[in-house]
């Protein structure tokens, strides 16, 4: 009997995964631990190894489709049973319905067999289909809960009774805390991202002979979706400050060799992250997300740092950046960028960011108006560091000097941040960097 291969959970907070690429086709023999497919989460590709040796019989979920953790994605026959080449079924068939659920508890009941609760079919693709147990349904009704806001920790991401009770407790606690704002706490931003734009609804493109249609990679699609959502929902405003990085440049020259001895590469980015973390502490409203139910203020400072890749861009997150010193930040950034470039980030590495920095200056750009990393409230763009002639005033004496200068731009969500607040934040960054 073929065994179901299910969508694995590739990170602590990951509830779904996208089939990126099938590395084996129906009929292929697969060794144990041999990569079977690539799963994409938030642009991170992870190879999923075969749990046992055998023959891939059928692909249930085609490439590009996103399903919840625990959903059957393929059928495999174990090696000893798979002498006969499996009847290959077209892999392209979109999400073939799982074969007549092998739910019948077992033809040969034994002491342990009937004990398996597996007779409940795993939820199929899409969160709308996930199994809601009777007690969860009743609690949702009694407490008027929107179950899409609750993260499931049960089998295959199922929402268990405990998840609901914990949610109710947490919500009560948060409502009590956030009493003045009088909005129900727990904005829906914690919910998984909206289902992807179904490409199938568009009419087929008529391709003129002098052009070609490139396939959209999972990462490209994620970027496209994310950018569109941000632009569509967030009224962007950009403000610009010019910062004198003389102190930072000197500090880095002094400190980099010392860090080098500890195997840590000191980049300017570490200084920017440090300054932003301090500024976020000073102006906490920037470290927030706007939702219709209320402004979600993030208590932790997790700063995403955009890393350009050959075929796209990814934003690994420096967690609790405000709790790290310069060495710790440099080490964390070095580790994340290295793993981003070698595609070894885990899904957890790219989640939970509360603010983002994009260092477009490394490519020579002096000035940009970046798009906010939804659902965050602002993004800082850092331009190229250029020596410029500036007028300095010391003790009332003006003088002309050559200084390493940099334009920094802040795109912010004007729904929750006013211009004055954004500028206050920018001036704090400037103060931090110029005080080095």
């Amino acid at each position, binding site marked *: 009997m073929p065994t179901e291969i299910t969508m694995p959970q590739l990170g602590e907070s990951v509830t779904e995964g996208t089939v990126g690429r099938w590395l084996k086709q129906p009929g292929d023999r697969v060794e144990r631990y041999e990569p079977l497919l690539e799963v994409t989460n938030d642009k991170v590709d992870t190879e999923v190894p075969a749990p046992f040796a055998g023959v891939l019989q059928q692909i249930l979920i085609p490439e590009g489709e996103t399903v919840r953790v625990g959903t059957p994605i393929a059928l495999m026959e174990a090696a000893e049973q798979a002498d006969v080449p499996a009847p290959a079924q077209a892999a392209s068939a979109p999400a073939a319905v799982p074969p007549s659920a092998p739910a019948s508890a077992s033809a040969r*009941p*034994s*002491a342990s067999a*009937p004990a*398996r609760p597996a007779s409940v079919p795993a939820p199929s693709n899409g969160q709308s289909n996930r199994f809601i147990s*009777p007690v969860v349904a009743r609690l949702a009704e009694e407490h008027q809960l929107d179950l899409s806001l609750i993260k499931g920790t049960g089998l295959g991401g199922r929402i268990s009774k405990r998840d609901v009770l914990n949610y109710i407790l947490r919500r009560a606690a948060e409502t009590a805390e956030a009493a003045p704002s009088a909005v129900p706490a727990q904005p829906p931003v914690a919910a998984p991202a909206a289902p992807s734009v179904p490409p199938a609804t568009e009419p087929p493109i008529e391709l003129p002979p002098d052009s070609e249609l490139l396939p959209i990679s999972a990462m490209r699609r994620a970027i496209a979706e994310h950018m569109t959502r941000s632009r569509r929902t967030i009224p962007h405003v950009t403000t610009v400050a010019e910062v004198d990085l003389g102190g930072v440049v000197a500090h880095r020259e002094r400190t980099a060799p010392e860090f080098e001895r500890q195997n840590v590469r000191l980049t300017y980015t570490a200084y920017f992250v440090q300054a932003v973390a301090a500024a976020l502490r000073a102006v906490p409203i920037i470290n927030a997300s706007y939702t219709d139910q209320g402004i979600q203020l993030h208590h932790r400072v997790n700063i995403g740092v955009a890393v350009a890749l050959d075929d796209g861009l990814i934003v690994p997150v420096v967690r609790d950046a405000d709790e790290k010193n310069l060495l710790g930040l440099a080490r964390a950034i070095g580790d994340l960028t290295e793993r981003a470039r070698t595609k070894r980030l885990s899904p957890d590495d790219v989640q939970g960011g509360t603010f983002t920095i994009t260092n477009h200056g490394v490519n020579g750009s002096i000035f940009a108006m970046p798009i906010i990393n939804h659902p965050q409230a602002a993004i800082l763009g850092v331009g190229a560091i250029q020596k410029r002639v500036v007028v300095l005033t010391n003790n009332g004496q003006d003088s002309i000097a050559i200084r390493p200068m940099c334009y920094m731009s802040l795109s912010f969500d004007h729904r929750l941040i006013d211009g004055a607040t954004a500028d206050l934040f920018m001036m704090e960054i400037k103060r931090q960097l110029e005080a080095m």
Partner: protein
Amino acid sequence: MPEMTLLESIRQGLDEMMAVDQRIFILGEDVGKRGGVFRATEGLYDKYGPNRVIDSPLAESSIVGACIGASLNDTRPIAEIQFSDFIAPAFNQIVQEAARFCYRSNGEWNVPLVIRAPYGGGIHGALYHSQSIEAFFCHVPGLKVVAPATPYDAKGLLKASIDDPNPVLFLEHKKCYRLIKGDVPAEDYRIPIGQAEIKRQGEDLTVIAYGMMLHHCLAAAEQLANEGIDVEVLDLRTLRPLDTEMILESVRKTSKVLIVHEDNLIGGLGGEIAALIGQHAFEHLDAPIMRIGGPEVPGMPYSDTLEHAFLPNVETIAAAMRELAEY
């Protein structure tokens, strides 16, 4: 409180009841001079004499039949079926006669009969000395079925069974006889028929069991406690009538249920309990109701390995509990 085995508590219960009620007598194979094959009636022949502790022929039908007749004539018989495997010849007397007598006589006549029957496996008894027979009898209205798992419960339920004006099938798990020890108070007490007991409080899931399986479930629950899974263990004690209220109350609390019995899974008591829960606590369930029971094998094998494989044990129960907790 003196500690004693389950077997000793039964012997003591019989003794104490016979001492105060002259109408009580025991009828069964080898119950007299030999004191029973398990020594449950040891010493009673010497104490109460051959008229009250009577050796019978190897004929279960006549043991029960004679007891029914005697019970209609102002006596309180206690029949012993040497092994519950051999209760089949008495099935007709128990089901057709004893269980219906009160109903048939419109309440005029009662059959205050207790049928003691050692049951269950795990003792290398093989096909003819290992069976669980409770499901056959739990099907019958008019009959009470009791299956204690601890010495305290055994003595208290035995006395309540003897007091009862209608027939009671009193099941004693053979594996529990000498293995299970516990405190039994010296003073007289009863445990009412039809009352289950929570033997272990827990929040995460409910396990329902009785007899030897109760002890396996308690051991498995201890194991899971180390893994942070909090298991509630409910001892049915009486299989008919079921303590529906306590079962439902526990399920409403934990929302997950595992039912464990050694008796055959299919058509076993677990199915009845699952149906009760499904009907009356549906909106409290957070997982499929799970059952563990005997496999689809016609009898308990003799081979040690196969006997072990046949019986649910602490590991299989713990594994099912884990699965349920994870669900």
